[in-house]
């Protein structure tokens, strides 16, 4: 029986982390050299963790499915990275950042973890700057900031609309330095398919070499998952097509609890679907809402060109509904408001499934050059995809699946319920509650990797110094490898008639319709039924061409889609359990008269951590009660 212990240290919130760090055991440099760590994933979290651990002297092995660590999907984050520097003298502080995140997450995140993320945010900016990340600067040569949704200060550092790329290349450079020194060994083009547990501790992983098809065993003293989110479960999402749940899901099946799986962020400003063959939605950064105004026509089904619709016939619905935050309300609020307008018949474009994001006023006020400086690459990207120029006519946008607040349950050390198995960055659940604020993902990932995990892992490793290198001939490796091979053989043997993508698309539609922006008990039940039927069909009809002993992209997809069915089922279970609305989880049965989310703190102020019980069995729910000692629980209002 798993017992959840979050290991939150006592004391005042501002002192928890520094006191805790001082109490953690250390490993001396000579012993670190004897210890091996596996890091899976090379996004901001994985690459920063791997390089920081390498710098400390551990022997690190890093894995990614891409051909190079520089391609991990952190690269696509656009708008920025938050820190509590208060460079703008606008009242920001670590406490304020913490408070914004707790409120933004609709009071469903753990106070201590969130405070720590805010606390290390300033060090993250210092480190990136030292690594040569070219953040935007003002004319005095100082770092510039901009504003993001859900907050009233300017604390977001940025590099045009390519902040993720520049930060990722920063972590990639620190990773390269350790690779050159021989402290880190890089294994690209590998899919992690299982975690190996020996005597209750994580001791290695099973990977598939994506070039040769070989199933490989890798051992270590500890394993870190930095494998990102599972937003691609919706098929159409803002994520890279290769992003997947498989690594984290394999850990879940081996005993790691999965927390709040239904908390998935739907990003309000994505380019809408343009054709039926589309498999990817491109995000337009939230930072655009600093200067862009969101509107729809006041008249239902108004088909006039936007420039023909006069000011008084436009409904700037975010400004109307939320005067205090206007266009900068948090993502969940903005997404629901867009869907509400479209469902009510006010949407624009051929399908009626989009709203305008208009820069007309900003261009008139600040000039085209200023807008180009801030968002040039985003405007270009928009034009390439849609063929329409946003300097001349408003962008059309619509919500899309984006970020998963849910993920592997971790304690304050970022360790999962499997000793020696850590989860960092988006792959864990801990910092964003039921909704993530913009620009806090890059912040959390690099904080976890550079400044938190290297400390907490030492405490675990202190007990490992006498443990010899993991023997990959151990029967547990044998067993895990066989399970992986059997599953691949089973997929290949079906030899049906439909592609993995076609199943993925249908699965995504079921989840989007029944477990998306608006949910209700009946719809969720219906979704569950449809999902189970489709999964059955998948195992009868999937077609994987080619062989398993070569580069086989269809096999890669099929493995991932098979797992997405299971992830989707858990999302629905979780959404059904939570009879309240909070953040991105909006149950239609639980809303205020104004159509806002209605939380039920008395009954649902907990983290829902699910335990796998075997195929076809209902997962077991564990509850971690959330205590709010340092912020007051309130209705979340942006009015």
């Amino acid at each position, binding site marked *: 029986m798993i017992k959840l212990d979050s290991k939150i240290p006592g004391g005042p919130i501002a002192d928890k982390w520094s006191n805790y760090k001082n109490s953690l055991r250390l490993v001396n440099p000579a012993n670190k050299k004897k210890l091996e760590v596996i890091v899976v994933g090379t996004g901001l979290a994985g690459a*920063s963790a791997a390089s920081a651990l390498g710098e400390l002297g551990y022997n690190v092995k890093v894995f990614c499915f891409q051909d190079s660590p520089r391609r991990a999907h952190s690269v696509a984050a656009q708008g920025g990275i938050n820190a509590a520097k208060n460079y703008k003298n606008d009242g920001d502080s670590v406490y304020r950042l913490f408070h914004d995140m707790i409120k933004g997450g609709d009071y469903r995140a753990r106070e201590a973890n969130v405070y720590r993320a805010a606390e290390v945010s300033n060090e993250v900016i210092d480190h*990136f700057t030292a690594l040569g990340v070219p953040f935007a*600067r003002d004319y005095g040569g100082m770092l510039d900031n901009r504003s993001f949704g859900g907050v009233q200060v300017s604390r977001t550092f940025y590099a045009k609309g390519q902040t993720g790329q520049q930060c990722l290349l920063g972590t990639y450079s620190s990773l390269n330095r350790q690779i050159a020194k021989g402290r880190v060994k890089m294994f690209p083009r590998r899919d992690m398919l299982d975690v190996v547990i020996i005597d209750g501790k994580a001791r290695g992983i099973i990977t598939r070499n994506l070039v040769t098809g070989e199933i490989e065993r890798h051992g270590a003293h500890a394993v870190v998952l930095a494998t990102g989110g599972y937003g691609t479960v919706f098929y159409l999402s803002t994520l890279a097509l290769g992003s997947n749940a498989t690594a984290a899901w394999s850990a879940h099946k081996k005993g790691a609890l999965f927390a709040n799986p239904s908390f998935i962020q739907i990003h309000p400003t994505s380019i809408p679907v343009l054709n039926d*063959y589309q*498999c990817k939605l491109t995000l337009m950064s939230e930072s655009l809402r600093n200067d862009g105004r969101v509107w729809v026509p006041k008249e239902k089904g108004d088909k006039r060109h936007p420039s023909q619709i006069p000011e008084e016939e436009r409904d700037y619905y975010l400004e109307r509904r939320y005067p205090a935050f206007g266009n900068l309300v948090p993502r969940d609020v903005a997404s629901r408001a867009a869907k509400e307008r479209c469902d009510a018949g006010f949407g624009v474009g051929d399908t009626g499934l989009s709203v305008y994001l208009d820069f007309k006023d900003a261009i008139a006020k600040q000039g085209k050059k200023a807008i180009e400086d801030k968002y040039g690459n985003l405007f270009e990207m928009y034009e390439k995809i849609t063929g329409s120029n946003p300097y001349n006519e408003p962008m059309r946008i619509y919500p899309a699946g984006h970020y998963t607040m849910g993920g592997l349950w971790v304690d304050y050390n970022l360790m999962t319920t499997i000793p020696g198995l850590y989860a960092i960055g988006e792959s864990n659940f801990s910092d964003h509650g039921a909704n993530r604020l913009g620009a806090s993902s890059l912040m959390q990932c690099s904080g976890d990797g550079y*400044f938190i995990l290297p400390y907490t892992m030492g405490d675990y490793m202190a007990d490992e110094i006498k443990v010899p290198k993991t023997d990959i001939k151990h029967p547990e490796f044998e067993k895990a490898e066989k399970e992986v091979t059997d599953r691949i053989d089973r997929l290949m043997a079906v030899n049906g008639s439909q592609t993995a993508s076609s199943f993925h698309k249908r699965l995504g539609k079921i989840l989007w319709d029944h477990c998306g922006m608006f949910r209700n008990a009946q719809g969720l039940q219906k979704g569950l039924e449809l999902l189970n039927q489709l999964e059955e069909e998948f195992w009868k009809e999937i077609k994987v061409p080619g062989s398993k002993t070569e580069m086989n*992209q269809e096999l890669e997809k099929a493995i991932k889609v098979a797992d997405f069915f299971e992830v989707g089922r858990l999302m629905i279970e979780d959404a059904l359990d939570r009879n309240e609305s909070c953040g991105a989880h909006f149950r239609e049965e639980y809303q205020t008269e104004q159509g806002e989310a209605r939380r039920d703190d008395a009954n649902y102020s907990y983290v829902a951590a699910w335990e796998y019980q075997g195929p076809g069995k209902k997962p077991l729910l564990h509850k971690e009660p959330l205590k709010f000692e340092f912020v007051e629980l309130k209705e979340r209002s942006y009015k």
Partner: protein
Amino acid sequence: MDIKLKIWRQKNASTKGKFENYELREVSPEMSFLEMLDYLNKQLIEGGKEPVTFEHDCREGICGTCGLYINGRPHGPATHTTTCELHMREFKDGETIIVEPWRSKAFPIIKDLAVDRSAFDKIMHAGGFVSIDTGSAREANAIPINKKISDRAFDAAVCIGCGACVAACKNSSAMLFVAAKVSQYAMLPQGKVEAADRVQRMVAKMDELGFGFCSNSYACEFDCPKGISVEFIAQMNREFLSAKLCSHKNH
């Protein structure tokens, strides 16, 4: 629209490849180039044939994974556009489109249109970083950096590592790729300390890996999806020369 495709097919690195012809009907001009290939692959798989292997990931022009040599140009006919951002509206109804992998000795073919670009990572291992350990950074605003210089460093830093510059160059030179990184760091105070060593190490590694020399054709800049300027190559040459001169003086 209907199109004809001539696509390079090659089972693996050790097998000889050849062009295969395909006809594709009812292609929407709204499709991206890769969605068109997805559409082709779906038909191939359902028809019991092997799909075309091609690499891609973010599909929004930033990860640098995709890269196809389309009608004789890296990333195809549109300027400042990656393959994944290229749309079928750039092509004519009935057109024959030739699709090849990157062609360079330093980028061996893995399968069909997928090539091995790990040589780029190896160049980065040789010096594509600022040597600073986590925890030792000073306060971010302690060193002001002139906005023009910082913006210029950013212009160099936008490289996505796709390899189009190498594919575009008749000599398969990686000069633009290396110059972008060398220049970014050389311009910033944080990177200046190691600039002389860095440029020498990275250039030596580039030569060792079989990339060709630069003969100033500027094809790299022309086909770079991020529009990185060849001025950075000039800057790298200056950095390299002064590093060499200084290192001679010291010996």
